[in-house]
């Protein structure tokens, strides 16, 4: 365990070196933003929309007391989505989608000697393969999370439109009530750190693969498991640090 952590740190030292050629790095970065970020937009939108709707319905069913205003539904949806659902749950989903993709892509390159080929050419393979993925995720994931927040709240709004549980006016009032902009900052800080954890851990797991297809599969699983564990752990630490 300690040895793996040491290897991870050594790999990260290689990863954060200056790229060989700026133009190549920029091209890689754009491609990674496309493949890691833009291609995840669909799943993020669908999950956020339905989750926002479910939070809204559950909150409305649990408000029996007439002293609690109906606008609490909108307020609850907003707080749940911004504070926890969008940054943490969506990051966990991305750990599965993006993490397994990165680990299997790099792992396959390792077992088919493509990484050795890069090294022999004089290219720093850790920097060339992992750095664009890490930076791309740190740039695009906050955008995805902001969209997730938007779609989550739209989900709750659609419930108001298509059911009689609460009115659109009450919901919108709740969404806008007692808003503190700091929670967006908190959510985005978490997102950036989770993006780093997902891509660096998955890149590491793929990079150290030895063997064949079975080991690539195992690395992919480890990438998702460790990314998820680290997200949960850092979620606790960051919440304590930023909200206490």
């Amino acid at each position: 365990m300690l040895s793996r952590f040491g290897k991870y740190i050594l790999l990260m030292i290689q990863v954060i070196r200056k790229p060989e050629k700026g133009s190549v790095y920029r091209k890689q970065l754009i491609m990674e933003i496309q493949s890691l970020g833009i291609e995840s937009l669909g799943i993020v939108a669908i999950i956020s929309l339905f989750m926002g709707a479910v939070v809204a319905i559950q909150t409305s069913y649990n408000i029996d007391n007439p002293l609690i205003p109906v606008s609490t539904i909108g307020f609850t949806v907003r707080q749940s989505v911004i504070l926890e659902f969008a940054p943490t749950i969506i990051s966990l989903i991305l750990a599965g989608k993006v993490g397994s993709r990165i680990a299997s892509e790099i792992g396959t390159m390792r077992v088919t000697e493509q990484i050795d080929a890069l090294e022999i050419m004089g290219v720093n393979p850790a920097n060339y393969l992992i750095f664009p993925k890490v930076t791309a995720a740190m740039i695009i994931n906050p955008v995805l999370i902001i969209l997730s927040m938007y779609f989550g709240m739209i989900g709750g709004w659609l419930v108001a439109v298509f059911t009689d549980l609460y009115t659109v006016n009450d919901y919108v009032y709740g969404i806008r009530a007692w808003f503190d902009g700091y929670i967006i900052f908190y959510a985005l800080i978490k997102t950036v750190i989770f993006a780093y954890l997902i891509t660096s851990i998955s890149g590491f797991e793929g990079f150290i693969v030895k063997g064949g297809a079975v080991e690539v599969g195992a690395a992919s699983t480890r990438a998702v498991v460790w990314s998820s564990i680290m997200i949960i752990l850092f979620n606790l630490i960051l919440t304590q640090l930023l909200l206490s």
Partner: protein
Amino acid sequence: MIKALNISKSFGENKVLKDITVKFEKGKTNLIIGQSGSGKTVLMKCLVGLYEVDEGHIYFDERDFSAMTFKERKKIRQEIGMLFQGGALFDSLNVEENIKFPLTMFTNQSLEEKIERVNFCLKWVNLENANKLYPAELSGGMTKRVAIARAISLNPEYLFCDEPNSGLDPHTSGVIDDLISKLTEEFQITTIVNTHDMNSVIKIGDTISFIYEGQLWWEGDKTQILDTDNKELNEFVFDTELTKRLKKSKIY
């Protein structure tokens, strides 16, 4: 010229290379042969720096590669071309992009110059018009030829080939052998080929180094190898039914 002086390499308790001293000459096809597990792949990976040697030194034309820093090695690496056993072409890039890759990373050539160089390399390996094909669309022989084209794109001083004929039929193997030999002579490259294909040994082995149990057991050339008295080498060379019969009937 590449020289390895007294190099040793262990993995845990397993000493894979034992005090090997060997010289690979410029303008010649230098073969490393040996049974599977004898240490020839480890030797090649030590020579190109994929493994660090535990003891000894490796010289690329009097430059001590094993004593160099990461940055110093980078310059030599750009003088190295390598053909991997499976080709190691980048899956996400087409043939043209694969060959162009080293040029993009290490030169400031314009796109036209790079394309011109790519086409030159492809012509060399008889694969004109394969520019837009992806590695998944290539046959085994084509993959090896594209890998050779990529290996020579930067005009290397040193060419390393790890089992270039593995998985190929005898005819295609011959084509690859001819290519390697022709490249070596025409561009005066120091070529090192790791193989256990006896056809290649007899056809292109200007110098041959036989590795046995991690040690350099025998050195010679393609004419000497068939008449050697070395017991282990004879067992290796004349191991197949065909070569046994040839030896018996003195056909070779």
